[in-house]
C-alpha cells in the first residue's frame, strides 16, 4: 500500500520528500553504484567527457538556483568560472615553479573558492537588487568583459596574457589514507587523471544537488520562487528581497566559483581570452539549464551531460568529411580552406539550435520530456 500509493502525491509532506518513491530510492542506489563503477569501465577520452560534464553540472545547478528558481537571469558565469580556475592555479601550486602562489591541499582551495565566490557574488548581488530582467542580463554581460580585463591585467594572480598552469596534483591526506585525485590509486589499480577528476566532480555534483534541492524544497526555496514569480507580492507577504535576491547571488556565485576550480583542474592550463573565458562560456551554461529544464536540478545534470558530451560525440561519430547525401553539398570538413563546417563550428551551431528549438518547442527541457514519460507510465494503461 505505502509503496504504490506514493506514486501519487496526496499531501504536502509527500510533496516535500527528498526521495518520495521506492523507485527513486532504488534508482539512487543504482546511480551511486554506477558512479563508483564507471571510471573503471570507460577509457580516458570518455572519462574526460564525463569529468567535464560533472564540472558543468555543478555550475549549472548553481546557475539554476539563481536563474531558474529566483528568476534572475545571469550571463556572468564565465567570470566566476575564471575566478575559480585562477584560484586553483594560485593556491593549488600550479605556479609554484615560478615561485608564485601556494601549494595547498585541494579541499583548502576549493574552500577558498567558495568563500571568494560568495564575497564577489555578494558585491554583484547588491546592484542586482535594483535591477530586473533585461537590465540584469546586460549588467552581467558587462561583468564578463570587466572580469576578462582584470584577469589579463592582474598578472600576479592569473599570469596575465601568458596564462596560468593549473595544479598537477590534487592530493588529500588524512594521515592514515591519502589520495591524489589527479593520479588516483583505488584498490591497487592506477587510474588516469580524468578518472580521478571524474570521481571528484561527480562526488561534488551529488553534494551540490542535495544541497540545492534542500534549499529549494524548504522555506528559503519557496521564498526564492515567490521572488521569481512576483517580487513585489513576495515583499508584501514578508519575504525579504534583500536577503533572498542577494542570497541567491551569493550561493550561486560560490557554487560557480567552486565549479571553476574543477574546470581549471580539467583544463590543466588557462589563458584569459575571449575564447576561453568569454561570453560563449556563459552562454553554454545557460544552454545547459535551458536544454535540461529551467527550475529542475536533475534537468541541469541531464543538460550538462548532453552539452558536455556534445563536442566529443561530434568528434567521434561525425565523419571528418561529410557531404549531404543525394545533393552532395559539403556539410562537414576538416580542411581549413574548404567549404563546409569545421567540427567546432558544428558544435556551436548545434548549441545554438538546441537553445532555440528547446525554448520554442519544449520550454521545460529534457526534464519536461522525462516527466511526460513518467506520467505516461504512472497512469498506464489509462494514459492519454
Amino acid at each position, binding site marked *: 500500500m505505502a509503496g504504490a500509493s506514493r506514486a501519487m502525491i496526496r499531501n504536502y509532506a509527500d510533496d516535500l520528500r527528498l526521495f518520495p518513491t521506492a523507485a527513486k530510492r532504488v534508482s539512487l542506489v543504482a546511480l551511486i553504484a554506477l558512479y563508483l563503477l564507471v571510471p573503471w569501465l570507460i577509457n580516458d577520452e570518455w572519462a574526460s567527457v564525463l569529468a567535464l560534464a560533472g564540472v558543468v553540472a555543478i555550475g549549472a545547478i548553481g546557475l539554476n538556483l539563481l*536563474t531558474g528558481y529566483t*528568476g534572475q*537571469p545571469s550571463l556572468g558565469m564565465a567570470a566566476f568560472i575564471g575566478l575559480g580556475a585562477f584560484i586553483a592555479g594560485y593556491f593549488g601550486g600550479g605556479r609554484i615553479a615560478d615561485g608564485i602562489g601556494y601549494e595547498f591541499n585541494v579541499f583548502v582551495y576549493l574552500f577558498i573558492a567558495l568563500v571568494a565566490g560568495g564575497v564577489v557574488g555578494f558585491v554583484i548581488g547588491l*546592484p542586482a537588487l*535594483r*535591477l530586473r*530582467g*533585461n*537590465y540584469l*542580463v*546586460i*549588467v552581467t*554581460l*558587462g561583468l564578463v*568583459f*570587466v572580469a576578462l*580585463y582584470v584577469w*589579463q*591585467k592582474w598578472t600576479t594572480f592569473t599570469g596575465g596574457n601568458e596564462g596560468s598552469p593549473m595544479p598537477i596534483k590534487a592530493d588529500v591526506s588524512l594521515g592514515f589514507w591519502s589520495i591524489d585525485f589527479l593520479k588516483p590509486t583505488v584498490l591497487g589499480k592506477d587510474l588516469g587523471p580524468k578518472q580521478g577528476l571524474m570521481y571528484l566532480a561527480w562526488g561534488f555534483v551529488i553534494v551540490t544537488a542535495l544541497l540545492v534541492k534542500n534549499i529549494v524544497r524548504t522555506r528559503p526555496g519557496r521564498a526564492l520562487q515567490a521572488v521569481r514569480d512576483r517580487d*513585489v*507580492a513576495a515583499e*508584501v507577504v514578508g519575504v525579504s528581497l534583500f536577503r533572498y535576491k542577494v542570497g541567491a547571488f551569493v550561493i550561486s556565485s560560490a557554487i560557480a566559483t567552486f565549479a571553476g576550480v574543477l574546470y581549471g583542474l580539467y583544463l590543466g592550463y588557462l589563458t584569459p581570452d*575571449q575564447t576561453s573565458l568569454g*561570453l*560563449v562560456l556563459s*552562454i553554454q551554461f*545557460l544552454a545547459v539549464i*535551458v536544454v535540461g529544464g529551467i527550475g529542475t536540478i536533475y534537468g541541469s545534470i541531464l543538460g550538462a551531460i548532453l552539452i558536455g558530451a556534445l563536442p566529443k560525440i561530434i568528434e567521434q561519430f561525425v565523419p571528418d568529411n561529410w557531404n549531404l547525401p543525394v545533393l552532395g553539398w559539403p556539410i562537414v570538413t576538416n580542411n*581549413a*580552406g574548404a*567549404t*563546409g*563546417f*569545421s567540427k*567546432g*563550428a*558544428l558544435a*556551436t*551551431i548545434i*548549441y*545554438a*539550435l538546441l*537553445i*532555440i528549438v528547446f*525554448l*520554442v518547442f519544449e*520550454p521545460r527541457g529534457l526534464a519536461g520530456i522525462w516527466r511526460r514519460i513518467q506520467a505516461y507510465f504512472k497512469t498506464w494503461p489509462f494514459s492519454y
Partner: protein
Amino acid sequence: MTKFFSLLADGIALGAVYALVALGFVVIFRATGVINFAQGGLVVFGAFLVYQAEQTWGLPFWVSALFAAVCVAAIGAAFEGLVLRRMIGQPIFAIILITIGLFLLVEPITTTIWHNPPGGIETPWGLSRVTIGDVKILQVNIATVVLGAIVMGGFFLLFQYTKVGVGMRATAVDQEAALAQGINVRRIFALSWAIAGVVAVVAGMMLAGGAGPAPGLSVSLAVIALRAFPAIILGGLDSPGGAVVGGLIIGVAEVMTKGYIPDLIPSLGPEFGDIVPYLIMLVILLVRPFGLFGTTEVRRV
C-alpha cells in the same frame, strides 16, 4: 590639442556606429519588449554580405550596401515571424535567450562561409584623410557620421510623421489597444526587426570600412556591437533619442580613454578603453536605473 581633436573625430565616428546599433535595439525593444542580443550578429552578417556583393560579385559599393540591407532586414523579419512570434507570452528571459541563440549562430556560419577574408570592404572614400587646421581626419569617419545622421534622421521622420510611425509608437505604448485600433501589430513587429536589420548593416559596413578604431572586417565586430548595450542603458532602453546621445557619449569616452590612459596611467593599458563603456553603464545604473532618458518602469502591486 591636435591629438584631442583627432581622438574626438574617431570617438564621434565610433559613437555614431554605436548610436546606429543602439537604435536597432531600441526599435525592437519598444515594439516587442525584447532585448535583441542578436543585433551584434546582424552587424557582422551585414558587413560580410556587403563584402560578398562588392568583392566577390563585383557590384558597386552602394548597390552592395543596398543588397546587404535588404537581406539582413529580411533575415530579421523572418526570424521574428518564424521563431519569436511563437514566444509571445513566454517569460522575457526565454525570449532573450532565443536571441542569444541567434547571436551564437552567426560566428560559425560567417567563418564557414567567408573564412578570414584577406581584404576588407572597399569604400568610395577609402583611407584618405581630410586636413582641418592641424587635425587629420579620416574621411571614413566623416562619412560614418553623415550616413549615420541620414539614417537616423530618416528613422525619426518615419517615426514622427508617417502612419506606420504612429502605429509603432502606439504599439510601444500598448499592444492590445493598438490592435483594437486596427493597427497591424504583427506587421509592426516585423517592420521593427527589418529596421534593426538595416541600421545593423550600415553600422557593420562602416565599422568594416575602418570607422573609429575598428579592426576591419572580422567576426570580432560582434563584440564591438555589444558595447552598444551600455549606450542604450545610458540613454534608456525605450528612448531612440537617448540611444543617439548614449552612443555618442560611450563612443567618445571609449576612444578618449584608449588615447590618453596609456600615457596617464600606463599600468591600466589601452585595453582599459574596451571596458570603459561597461564601467560607465554600471555607474549610470546605480544612479539612474532607467537611464538618462528612459521611462521609469511603474511596478504595480
